[in-house]
């Protein structure tokens, strides 16, 4: 099975600070991978390198076998990756439907001349955009008005819209940056189910998350980062028992500290 995402020895430095220092991992179809680590460990920097928002200092990123290192974010998105952001990055004044339509920009189906002349192709294309937007909003179980600006929605609803927008891209790889942040218990349970439904579409998911309960339950593989380096990798059980991980989260203690799995 070829990897959808292959990250090799990724490094990025800001001045003297090495935010990501030699990260390597790969993601396959229908795989859920969690990247965890203390704040400032370089998780989001790694995401930004993969999606092209930062240019890596060295190392390479391969998407479906294609080298996308240092390309523009839009080209990398076209190569098959979609993402959400740590702090919501929706288009606040636009409607819920329009926000989801943003994910479908690459579908094409019409050009500016079609738009000016309102050709049948344009009408078909617009109908498709609307239908698909509703489909993805249904998929993330978005309940609420869809023709209103997203700024009017609650935080939890906005998070769902952002995931729907990322899904509408129909990418092979979905990067979720702290999807559970700010959600309550029942919303987290729904997120868990949603991630599994996304995986069942054949999509690989890489997520950054601080909620250990969610990470342990959801992910097949966990990559633990600290100071830009990968300090451990493995199944939830392996990572939980890894002394280096316990040290990174709880600090060194001579008497030995037991992980309670909810650092």
């Amino acid at each position, binding site marked *: 099975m070829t990897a959808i995402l292959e990250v090799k020895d990724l490094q990025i430095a800001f001045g003297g600070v090495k935010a990501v220092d030699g990260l390597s991992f790969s993601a396959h179809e229908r795989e859920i991978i969690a990247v965890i680590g203390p704040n400032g460990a370089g998780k989001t920097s790694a995401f930004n390198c993969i999606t092209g928002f930062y240019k890596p200092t060295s190392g390479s990123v391969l998407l479906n076998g294609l080298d996308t290192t240092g390309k523009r*974010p839009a080209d990398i998105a076209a190569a098959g990756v979609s993402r959400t952001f740590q702090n*919501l*990055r929706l*288009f606040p004044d636009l409607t819920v439907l329009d926000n989801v339509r943003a994910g479908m920009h690459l579908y094409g189906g019409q050009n500016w001349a079609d738009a000016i002349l309102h050709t049948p192709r344009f009408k078909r294309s617009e109908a498709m955009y609307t239908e698909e937007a509703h489909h993805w909003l249904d998929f993330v179980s978005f309940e609420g008005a869809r*023709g209103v600006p997203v700024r009017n929605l609650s935080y939890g609803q906005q998070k769902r819209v952002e995931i729907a927008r990322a899904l509408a891209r129909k990418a092979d790889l979905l990067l979720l940056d702290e999807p559970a942040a700010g959600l309550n218990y029942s919303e987290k349970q729904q997120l868990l189910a949603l991630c599994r439904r996304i995986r069942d579409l054949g999509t690989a998911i890489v997520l950054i998350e601080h909620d250990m309960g969610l990470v342990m339950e959801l992910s097949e593989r966990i990559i633990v980062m600290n100071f830009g380096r990968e300090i451990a990798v493995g199944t939830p059980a392996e990572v939980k028992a890894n002394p280096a991980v316990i040290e990174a989260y709880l600090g060194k203690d001579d008497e030995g500290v037991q992980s309670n799995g909810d650092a």
Partner: protein
Amino acid sequence: MSENVDSTQAPRKIGPPLSRISRLFESKQLGWVALGGALLAPFVTATPYSLNVMTTAAIFVLLASGLNIVVGYCGLLDLGYIAFMAVGAYTAGILSKSFDLPLIFTIPAVLVMTILAGLIIGAPTLRLRSDYLAIVTLGFGEITRITANNLTITGGPSGIFGIPGLLTIGRFDVQQPAVLYYVTVLVVALFVLASARLGKSRLGRAWRFVREDEDAAEAMGIHTYKVKLLAYIFGAIWGGCGGVLFAAHLSAVSPQSFIFLQSALVLMAVVLGGMGNMRGVVIGALVISLLPELLRDLAAQRYLAFGLLLVIVMVFRPQGFWPARGYERDRGSDGADEAAVARGESR
């Protein structure tokens, strides 16, 4: 994160406030009503003076609808927009005068020149945002005017005179004021419609995505530089065609017509009318171009009154007369749920 917290506390609007009046404003027939009004206007008053004012106003509407693409849809603050009109007017004027062509045959050349101008201003400024972009476009506008003022081919400060008419077929001359007015209104109506349709398309949405959040748009696979360049190019085409009509209307082109104040007035029309909403922008353009004429009785004080009215409007309605409506029809063929919400709110 504080913003996120705020958004949960903000009063939630569940549905769009669709009253009977707002539904009337959103109706598709409104454009026909406006066109009908413009076509009937000469039957109310058809003095040479009023036809002159109305033709100027129609051209101004075309300019505002072009700038709305750049500023309203795409959010690129352009303070030198009138330069595109200058490029169009000069290209048309010079060609038609030197080859004794009717103006209408210069349009292909005008398109090429204005697209070039759009690329020249667009390409180097793509990395710039807001205030920096405004300064560069301001400079571009002034460079264009000063160049026209100094070149021999553009006729220097006195410009070009005696430009042939738009078109003459046998004894029928489009150049008669009333005919020219009707031609102008029809051309402008087509451009306004095209601009409104572009706004509601894949490209128009891409412009709005770029305006709202460039990084998020990039992450969705939108090439922000291409999209911004297209906004410039479309804006330039609209401006250039405005220039051709301008040259036809005055049969003369001179640098004084392309001073910074003109760019500022077009921008004012867009902001006053409601950025991003074509209907609002048309109204804004009509107000900006017709109000000084309607205030002519005030003689020396008319620009004082004009300025005061603009300040008052901006203080009490900063979003413009008729801003872009952030709502659209929800699922359901007749938008029944929306209507229910609207009824519930009105009670």
